[in-house]
C-alpha cells in the first residue's frame, strides 16, 4: 500500500500552511516580531499564488494528482480550474491581508509581545490553506478536513474583533457562524458516513456513486447521503435555507474579515460544491434538481432582501447570498463547461465583491464616513475615481455593461442551463437579473445623486442665468470641504486601482476567465 505524494503539486496549499507554521515558530523564537509576521504571511500567500501556475498552465481536462493510490485515483487533484480557484483564493486573501494590515499590526501594541498579531495571522493563513485545499479535494477525508480548516479559523477571526464597541456584536456573529457551521459539519459528517455506506469508498468518484445508484437499497442510502452533503456544503456558500448566519456575521465581523468571508471563503464553498456535484451527477437527477431549486431560491431571496437594505454591509451580505445562487446555477447542469462557468463566475464575483468591500471600507474609514447607503450619497462628486471603481464593481455584480465582464459572466453561467433546456430555471434567473439590477442600481443612484451641499436653491427662472454666470471651479471648491481634507491611504488606492483594472481588462478582453 503506497501513496504517491507528489509534493510539488501541493505547494499552493502548503505555502500558506507552512507560512502559518513558520509564523508560530517565529513567535516562539522572537516574541516581538511585529510586522514581520504579516510580511511572512504575505510571502506565503504570494508563494502559494505563484505555485498555482503549473496547474493553471495545464491544458483543459488534464489534472495533476497528489496522494495518489495505486489504483490511480488521487486524493488531491489539481486541474487548471483548481489552479485558477486557488489563485483566486490566494489573491483575494492577499487583498484582505493588505486591507487589514494596519489593524493587525496594531493588534500587538499594548501587549508586550506580538502574540495577538501572530494568532490572527496564523488563523488567517490556516484558513487560507484550507480554502485552497478544498477545490482539489477528491475524497471525503480531504474534503472534510480542508472545509473545517477553512471554516473554524474564520470563526475565531470573526470573534477576535478588537474594537470594544463592536466586540459584543462580533461575538454574536461568531456564534451564529459557529453554530451553523457546527450543525452543517455534523450533517456533512453524517452524509459522508452514509456515502461510505452506500458506495463503499471514501473517494468521491462518480463511478462508485453510479455503481451504488444502480442498486435500489443503496441508491436510497446514496440519496440520503447526497441530501446531507449538499446541506452541509450549502451552509458554506450561503445558499438558502442555510444562509441565516450570513447577514448576521457579515455585519458584525471586522470589515476585512467580512471581505474574506464574502470573497475567499466562497472559493472553498464553490470548490466543495463542484467536487460533490461532479461526483453525484452520475447517479440521478436529484443533485441537479436540488442544486437548481436551491439556486433559484437563493438568488430570489437574496435579491429580495438586498433590495431593502440600507446598511451596505447588509446589502453586500444579501448580495453574496444572491450571487451564491448564481454560482450554483451552472452546477444544475453538469458538464465540464458548467463547472468552468461556475469557476469563471466565481472569479468575477470575487473580484467585484472584494472591490466593493474595499470601497465600503474606505468610505467607512473616512472621518464622517459610515456603511450606510446615505454615506455614499454624492460619492461620485467627492471621490469620482473611487465612485467610478465602485460603480464598476456594482455593475459587474448586476451584470450590466459597461462592466461587460459581469454580463459575460452571466451569459456564461446561463449557457449550460439553457443547453440543458431547464426553462423554468432560466426564467427565474432572468427575472433575478432584473431584480439584481434594481438592488445595485439603487446604490449606484445614491452614488451619482447630488448632495445637499451641491444643490443650490435657485428661484426657478434664474436657474439658467446661474448656469451661465457661475463658474464651475467655485462650486467644486465649496462642495463638502470635509471630504477634501481626507486623504485616502495609498494601499487602498492601490487595491481599488488594481481590482478595478482587473475588471476593466476583463471587460475589454475576457480572456482566460471562462
Amino acid at each position, binding site marked *: 500500500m503506497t501513496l504517491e505524494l507528489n509534493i510539488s503539486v501541493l505547494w499552493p496549499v502548503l505555502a500558506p500552511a507552512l507560512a502559518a507554521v513558520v509564523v508560530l515558530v517565529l513567535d516562539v523564537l522572537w516574541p516581538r516580531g511585529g510586522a514581520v509576521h504579516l510580511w511572512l504571511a504575505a510571502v506565503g500567500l504570494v508563494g502559494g499564488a505563484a505555485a498555482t501556475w503549473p496547474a493553471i498552465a495545464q491544458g483543459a481536462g488534464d489534472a495533476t494528482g497528489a496522494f495518489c493510490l495505486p489504483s490511480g485515483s488521487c486524493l488531491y487533484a489539481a486541474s487548471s480550474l483548481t489552479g485558477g480557484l486557488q489563485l483566486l483564493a490566494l489573491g483575494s486573501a492577499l487583498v484582505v491581508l493588505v486591507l487589514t494590515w494596519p489593524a493587525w499590526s496594531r493588534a500587538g501594541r499594548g501587549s508586550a509581545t506580538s502574540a495577538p498579531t501572530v494568532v490572527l495571522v496564523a488563523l488567517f493563513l490556516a484558513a487560507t490553506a484550507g480554502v485552497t485545499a478544498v477545490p482539489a479535494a477528491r475524497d471525503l477525508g480531504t474534503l472534510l478536513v480542508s472545509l473545517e480548516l477553512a471554516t473554524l479559523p474564520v470563526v475565531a477571526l470573526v470573534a477576535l474583533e478588537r474594537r470594544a464597541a463592536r*466586540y459584543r456584536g462580533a461575538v454574536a456573529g461568531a456564534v451564529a457562524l459557529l453554530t451553523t457551521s457546527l*450543525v452543517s459539519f455534523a450533517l456533512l459528517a453524517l452524509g459522508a*458516513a452514509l456515502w461510505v455506506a452506500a458506495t463503499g469508498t471514501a473517494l468521491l468518484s462518480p463511478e462508485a456513486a453510479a455503481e451504488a445508484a444502480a442498486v435500489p437499497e443503496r441508491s436510497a442510502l446514496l440519496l440520503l447521503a447526497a441530501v446531507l452533503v449538499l446541506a452541509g456544503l450549502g451552509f458554506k456558500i450561503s445558499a438558502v435555507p442555510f444562509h441565516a448566519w450570513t447577514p448576521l456575521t457579515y455585519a458584525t465581523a471586522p470589515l476585512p474579515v467580512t471581505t474574506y468571508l464574502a470573497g475567499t471563503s466562497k472559493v472553498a464553498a464553490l470548490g466543495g460544491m463542484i467536487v460533490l456535484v461532479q461526483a453525484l451527477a452520475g447517479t440521478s437527477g436529484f443533485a441537479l434538481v436540488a442544486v437548481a431549486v436551491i439556486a433559484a431560491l437563493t438568488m430570489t431571496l437574496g435579491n429580495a432582501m438586498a433590495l431593502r437594505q440600507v446598511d451596505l454591509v447588509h446589502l453586500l451580505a444579501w448580495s453574496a447570498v444572491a450571487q451564491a445562487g448564481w454560482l450554483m446555477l451552472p452546477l444544475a447542469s453538469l458538464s465540464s463547461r458548467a463547472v468552468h462557468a461556475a469557476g469563471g463566475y466565481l472569479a468575477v464575483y470575487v473580484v467585484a465583491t472584494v472591490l466593493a468591500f474595499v470601497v465600503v471600507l474606505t468610505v467607512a474609514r473616512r472621518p464622517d464616513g459610515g456603511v450606510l447607503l446615505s454615506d455614499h450619497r454624492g460619492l461620485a462628486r467627492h471621490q469620482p475615481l473611487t465612485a467610478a471603481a465602485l460603480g464598476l464593481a456594482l455593475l459587474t455584480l448586476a451584470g450590466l455593461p459597461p462592466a461587460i465582464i459581469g454580463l459575460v459572466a452571466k451569459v456564461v453561467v446561463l449557457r449550460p442551463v439553457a443547453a440543458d433546456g431547464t426553462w423554468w430555471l432560466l426564467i427565474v434567473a432572468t427575472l433575478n437579473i432584473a431584480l439584481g439590477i434594481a438592488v445595485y442600481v439603487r446604490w449606484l443612484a445614491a452614488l451619482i445623486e447630488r448632495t445637499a451641499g451641491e444643490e443650490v436653491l435657485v428661484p426657478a427662472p434664474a436657474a439658467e442665468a446661474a448656469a451661465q454666470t457661475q463658474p464651475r471651479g467655485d462650486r467644486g471648491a465649496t462642495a463638502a470641504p470635509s471630504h477634501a481634507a481626507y486623504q485616502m491611504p495609498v494601499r487602498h488606492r492601490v487595491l481599488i486601482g488594481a481590482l478595478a483594472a482587473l475588471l476593466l481588462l476583463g471587460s475589454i478582453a475576457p480572456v482566460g476567465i471562462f
Partner: protein
Amino acid sequence: MSPALPLLLAAILAGVGTYGVLARRHAVLMLIGVELMLGAAGLILVTVGQFDIGQVGGDPLASGAVLTLFVITIAAAEIVVALAVVMAMFRTRGDVDLTGEAQTVEAEVPDETSPKMGEVLG
C-alpha cells in the same frame, strides 16, 4: 452480530442530536447535540468499515475507520473553537442563550426604514 444494532444506535444518536440542536437554547447543550450527531456519523463509519456494508470486496483503505478518526479529530478541534467562542459569548452577554437577540450591533446603526424604495422604483 448484525450491523442493525449499531446502525440503530447511530440513528438514535443522530435523532437525539438533532433534537438537541433544535430544542436546546443553551449553547453548550447545543454543542452536545452536535457531538451526538458526529458520534452517530462516526458510528456509522465504523460499522460500515466493520461489516463491509455495501462493498464488493474489502476496502484496502479502510475508509470507514480512517474517516472516523478524521471526524473525531475535527470534532475535537471544533469543540475547542466553539467553547472559546461560547466563553466569549458568556463574557459579553452574561448568558449563553442561543435564542437571544444576536444583532446588538444593529442598535448602533440607525435602522432607516427604507423610504428610498418608493422613490427609486417609483
